[in-house]
């Protein structure tokens, strides 16, 4: 098998992966960097982010406010040292992007404009109209093109890590164009593989968000942390799940039930604020978990509007006027018209909560390092614990940048410290074994288990049992179902047995990743007998700081369900309190 030599290899060329690559190239021009991605970098799902990235910049704001909003928003499951690092580095990273050409929206005086976002006490979300992630991704991609030391491997699908004697020594990947396997030797590896929303049928996540990065680390023995915390975004288009950014509400849009009532006031997020005058951390600017939960409660009461795609609430932006909508929310208008046939300038848009973001992921520390020497991770696939039990909108794009860079610096330190490379024989043996597994999958036949069939069953189970509200009964059923699906997956059969751009094969491998992640979600959820942030149990309705002010750690156990372990949350100065979104501005 052909091999590619590098000092640092990066799996994933979305926001986190590109940021890491640039940081490496800038730190040491002699470094050989391999940037491996299953899609061309600009196709990565960072492009879909709309609303913006949080970072303190205005004089009335402070790092302490950003810290408190984040920690409270995360229902105190955030590691506070990591949050400190995030909020400190955030403005620098956003300015750095500005220096690289990101077309941030501006104030009349030429300074960067910021907008309000859910759960944030001040205006601190930097935005580029409503295509913030798109511009961040393209700015990073284009900036990366000036560094000759970043060698890209576009459309290479990574299947396994090479781990020998407790150290990570690279990966193996399929070159999609040829179907050939390549071995990537690296002295340090950064995983930046993105989220896993595709485990669910109704999601804002693109087709590529299948949890591969998480599964790679998990199978190599690194824990997946806090996987039970899955964020529902309140406002997805019911027909396709396409997101209408939280900035719709940041700009002043309101949520109505079928009777035209701004129902959030009935769920602890009132008092009602005047139309067109949003108040921080109140009503429509409440955090995502609370707003999505209010939808569910209201639906139970029969107050939601039936549509052909299920019940919906109404997002009313008419009072913003055509000019503001065109200037600040052009994509929202375009998508509402295209995919729903509703123009937000003249009519309220039906929306409903949709699976959006994984708070959990690969267990990393504040240096973006995992417990496996040589392995680092950043971005949505990682859980450095700045999001806790509920991410605040616009913290994730910031996280990609801050911890993408941090992962690069830590990897570089690790390389410089000079761990002896794993010997050639061991690498070759690992790669050959990986190739053997793939070959066996390609040749297998006779079971009738298909990618589409198993995937559908997985999605149904997740939707029914691991959604906004959960019960012991539902989760137990989901765990059993996922064990069964994983057993059946071991016999899965491909229809397409050819080599060139075989998407049947890729989807099978992606399904394998999702099943592993899904099992970590449901097992962690079942074990967490409390309600916190995005994890709500109908049978354990209160937060339980005595038992569960701890991170869950799901540890891979081959054919068995994962073992669930716990670790204390890092608390430096903010003791768990009440999350107050009732007009007082919160803590």
């Amino acid at each position: 098998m052909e091999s590619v030599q590098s000092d640092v290899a990066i799996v994933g060329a979305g926001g986190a992966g590109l940021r890491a690559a640039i940081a490496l190239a800038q730190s040491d021009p002699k470094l050989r960097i391999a940037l491996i991605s299953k899609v061309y970098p600009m196709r990565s799902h960072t492009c879909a982010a709309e609303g913006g990235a949080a970072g303190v910049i205005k004089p009335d704001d402070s790092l302490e406010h950003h810290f408190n909003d984040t920690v409270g928003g995360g229902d105190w499951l955030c590691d506070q040292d990591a949050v400190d690092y995030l909020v400190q580095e955030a403005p620098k990273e956003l300015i750095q992007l500005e220096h690289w050409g990101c077309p941030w929206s501006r104030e009349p005086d030429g300074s960067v404009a910021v907008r309000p976002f859910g759960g944030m006490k001040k205006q601190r979300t930097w935005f580029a109209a409503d295509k913030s992630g798109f511009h961040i991704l393209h700015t990073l991609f284009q900036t990366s093109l000036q560094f000759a030391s970043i060698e890209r491997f576009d459309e290479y699908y990574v299947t396994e890590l090479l781990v020998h004697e407790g150290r990570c020594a690279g990966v193996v990947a399929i070159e999609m164009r040829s179907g050939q396997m390549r071995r990537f030797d690296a002295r340090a590896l950064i995983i930046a593989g993105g989220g896993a929303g595709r485990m669910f049928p109704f999601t804002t996540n693109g087709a590529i968000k299948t949890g591969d990065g998480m599964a790679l680390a998990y199978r190599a023995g690194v824990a997946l942390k806090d996987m039970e915390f899955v964020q529902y975004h309140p406002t997805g288009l019911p027909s396709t799940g396409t997101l209408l950014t939280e900035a719709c509400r940041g700009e002043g849009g309101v949520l109505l039930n079928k009777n035209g009532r701004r129902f959030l006031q009935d769920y602890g997020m009132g008092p009602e604020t005047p139309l067109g005058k949003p108040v921080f951390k109140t009503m429509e600017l409440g955090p995502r978990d609370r707003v999505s939960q209010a939808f569910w409660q209201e639906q139970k009461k029969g107050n939601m509007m039936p549509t052909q795609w299920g019940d919906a609430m109404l997002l009313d932006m008419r009072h913003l006027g055509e000019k503001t909508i065109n200037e600040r929310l052009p994509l929202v208008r375009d998508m509402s018209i295209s995919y729903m046939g509703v123009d937000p300038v003249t009519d309220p848009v039906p929306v409903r909560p949709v699976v959006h973001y994984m708070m959990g992921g690969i267990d990393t520390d504040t240096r973006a390092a995992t417990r496996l020497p040589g392995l680092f991770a950043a971005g949505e696939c990682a859980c450095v614990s700045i999001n806790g039990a509920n991410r605040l909108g616009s913290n994730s794009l910031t996280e990609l940048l801050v911890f993408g860079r941090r992962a690069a610096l830590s990897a570089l330190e690790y390389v410089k410290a000079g761990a002896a490379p794993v010997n050639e024989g061991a690498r070759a043996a690992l790669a050959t074994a990986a190739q053997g597994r793939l070959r066996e999958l390609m040749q297998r036949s006779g079971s009738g288990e298909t990618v589409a069939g198993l995937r559908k069953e997985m999605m149904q189970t997740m939707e029914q049992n691991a959604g906004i509200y959960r019960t012991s009964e539902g989760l137990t059923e989901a765990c059993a179902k996922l064990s069964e699906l994983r057993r059946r997956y071991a016999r899965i059969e491909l229809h397409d047995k050819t080599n060139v751009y075989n998407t049947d094969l890729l989807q099978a491998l992606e399904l394998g990743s999702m099943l592993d992640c899904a099992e970590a979600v449901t097992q962690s959820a079942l074990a967490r007998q409390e309600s916190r942030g995005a994890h709500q149990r109908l049978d354990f309705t209160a937060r339980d700081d005595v038992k569960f002010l701890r991170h869950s750690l799901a540890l891979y156990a081959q054919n068995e369900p994962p073992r669930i372990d716990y670790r204390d949350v890092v608390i430096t100065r903010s003791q768990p309190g009440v999350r107050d979104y009732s007009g007082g501005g919160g803590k």
Partner: protein
Amino acid sequence: MGERQVELEVLRYNPETDREPHFQRYSVACREEWVVLDALNHVKETLDPTLSYRWSCHMAVCGSCGMMVNGEPKLACKTFLRNYHGVIRVEPLRHFPIERDLVTVIDDFVAKLTRVKPYLIPKEPKSVEAGEYRQTPAQLKRYKQFTLCINCMLCYAACPEYGLIPDYLGPAALSLAHRYNQDSRDGGRGERQEELASKEGVWECSFVGACSEVCPEHVDPAAAIQQVKIRSTLDWYQEHLMPWLKK
């Protein structure tokens, strides 16, 4: 809930098993609100798992799903079935080699993007500690439109020049260069000019305007190319007729 039987005619080609490309017919029960991509996904899930194509975002922003629909370059995720009657013919993007089925080889495009130096070459370097560059909304507006390119390559499939002269840099790469040239923070026009005004640069464009017509993001590459031509002409006069203008 409207449902309709749609006939798709999809170009298939697998270099390992096919001598040459051929069309395959699929008859699909589609919902009224579906886009072409939904129909392809339905085929892949229920009829034929061997069909290959690229897609991810389903919201016209990742640029993966460009293909020819009834002979026109389109994003499959934004092309509604309700606008078509009769058989819908789906082919890979024109002017690109086929890798497999609807997947094209895009190396040429990616190389051209890289060639035009599509990154900020600062006019006045500044440290992060010194804060952001000031840029007024009016200055932003001068280049904003040209930042919206999603690299879907529909414009290359529409461009007759690119079809004839494969070396031509093409609409998206030229617009992107122009985007940086127009940015008040940038001072790299001189460095980019060599590529832009080269034989394969803007002068290849015969201003048919097809690129701007098919652009799903309204980037208007034709306008960018026109603007570059005007600037390049001025440069030429400055250099050759009015040398005293240059300090």
